[in-house]
């Protein structure tokens, strides 16, 4: 197998995006994504069975388009990569079965890749090799994590994560409470610009001393987040305005909610970075598109002397290029293929970069 500048095709199907990406080494050649988001709108959130059906329908057309865009054939590909977890079990299954079949049909080696680490690995497609002392803050509709990345291909550690809803999920739920539709992120972000972020003080979850502890004696959730209480607080707040017969200050609530999310995410991320000698941070995941989260992360990174890297939005949201990019890194690092007997793992830990 060509292990220098390998041509790798990556497949992603862990949530509601069917993605096929093609890279050569750390150069992006194609990033084709088909989203079933529109089909989930009326439900106000991703419905796993609907997402899985959409993956099956979208896979071959997405694959064809990616090959076409990259101007390569399956025969020319050096290796295949697929998200094997974490994610929605039924959705992962579609991409994994398709990837195994392509591997069987072409004889190309297959790498089963961790979706979360792929969100970090995608960074190489925008700016090349990732720096040392690296941390990654991943925020999306499906996950909220802070990682320490000692080696992209074999040493990644979870420092903290949400213990309930992902941040993006909280946006969706709050948007529903405010009657703003789905998905919640973009609409709340837009509305928040016209609102007062200090009008209502919403809670920052898991920030009480009993959860935080100290740097020397960390509490049980020092770097963890919780967003379910925040969503409840927004609902209570809305009820109070309604009970008082006052018009709902939607923009102020949106701004105050967004401030609470961005504040607690970045505060805890900074704590994790400074207490673990992390001097370079990568921000990834779909919520990296959020203007306030980006601005506050930049501001606080500057304050702590941490360099910040944010890949373009098309590489932050779920896609196949990130899977291909990490797959290529694993190939270049001499990693062994996963074969075609592995099982998808909906709760694959970040310590497992590939199977």
């Amino acid at each position, binding site marked *: 197998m060509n292990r220098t500048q390998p041509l790798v095709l990556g497949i992603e199907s862990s949530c509601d995006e069917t993605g096929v990406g093609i890279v050569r080494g750390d150069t992006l050649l194609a990033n084709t994504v088909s989203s079933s988001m529109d089909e989930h709108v009326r439900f106000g959130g991703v419905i796993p069975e609907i997402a899985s059906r959409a993956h099956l329908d979208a896979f071959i057309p997405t694959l064809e388009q990616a090959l076409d865009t990259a101007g390569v054939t399956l025969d020319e590909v050096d290796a295949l990569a697929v998200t094997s977890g974490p994610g929605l079990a039924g959705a992962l299954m579609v991409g994994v079965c398709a990837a195994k079949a392509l591997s069987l*049909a072409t004889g190309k080696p297959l790498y089963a890749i961790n979706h979360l680490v792929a969100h970090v690995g995608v960074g190489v497609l925008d700016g090349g090799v990732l720096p040392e002392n690296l941390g990654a803050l991943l925020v999306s509709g499906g996950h909220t994590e802070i990682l320490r990345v000692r080696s992209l291909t074999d040493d990644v550690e979870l420092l903290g994560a949400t213990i309930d809803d992902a941040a993006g999920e909280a946006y969706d739920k709050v948007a529903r409470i405010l009657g703003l539709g789905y998905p919640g992120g973009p609409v709340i972000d837009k509305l928040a610009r016209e609102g007062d972020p200090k009008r209502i003080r919403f809670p920052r979850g898991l920030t009480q001393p009993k959860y935080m502890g100290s740097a020397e004696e960390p509490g049980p959730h020092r770097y963890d987040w919780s967003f379910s209480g925040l969503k409840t607080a927004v609902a209570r707040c809305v009820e109070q305005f309604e009970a008082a017969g006052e018009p709902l200050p939607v923009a102020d609530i949106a701004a105050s909610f967004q401030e609470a999310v961005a504040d607690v995410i970045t505060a805890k991320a900074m704590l994790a970075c400074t207490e673990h000698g992390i001097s370079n941070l990568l921000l990834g995941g779909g919520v990296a598109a959020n203007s306030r989260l980006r601005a506050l992360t930049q501001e606080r990174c500057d304050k702590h002397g941490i360099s910040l890297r944010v890949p373009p939005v098309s590489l932050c949201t779920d896609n196949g290029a990130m899977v291909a990019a990490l797959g290529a890194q694993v190939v270049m690092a001499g990693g062994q293929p996963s074969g075609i007997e592995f099982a998808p793992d909906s709760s694959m830990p970040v310590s497992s970069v590939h199977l």
Partner: protein
Amino acid sequence: MLILSLDTSAIASAALLTGQGETLAAFATEDTRSHAEVLAPGIGKIMTTADVTGADIDAVVVGVGPGPFTGLRSGIATARSLAFAWGKPLHGVMSLDAIAVDAALDAWRAGVDEFVVATDARRKEVYWARYRSTGGRHELLDGPHVSAPSAVPDLPAYGMGAGLYPEQLRGVTEYSGTQPTAEALGRTAVAKLEKGLDLLDTSPLYLRESDAKVPGPRKRAL
């Protein structure tokens, strides 16, 4: 002619068959929940056993259900990807036909004209279809459907669905544990392909909507 046949509507199975319906190699699992792990390796093994490469295969055929959603998709995603990578024609077959092909012969020998095929749809329901046996050949009359076993027509019933609900279905004992297999599915497919008849496309026959419910409006405080 050489076809690769797959079915994951219940168990996971694969078979290589000639145009005469002769099986060169086949594999089938017992269980109904590990399709994503076992299917591709199983196909790899039967191709090695039969000393066949993708270039030798003339068409890929897959059972399109009805069957439990996740398992069913495993087979269809696999079949579509193999056919795409090999550049070979791809066809679908209704999975209950894989039981009907043998049931029709049994029914004919028993002097029965019409029969049903039923498989496990979980949630106390069965997937079923009604067939006529014409000289031992199956002809689909009605279905496939998914319903409570009590809603299935009162006819001799073939397949695992009959075995699961002996009180509601008139099960044919020797077939009470029969599941659709790629081998039987392939026999019905080659018979049609050799005659130049059309098969189905590979759209899955889910028969059920996703369980998703549209949330109601939020209750107001007043």
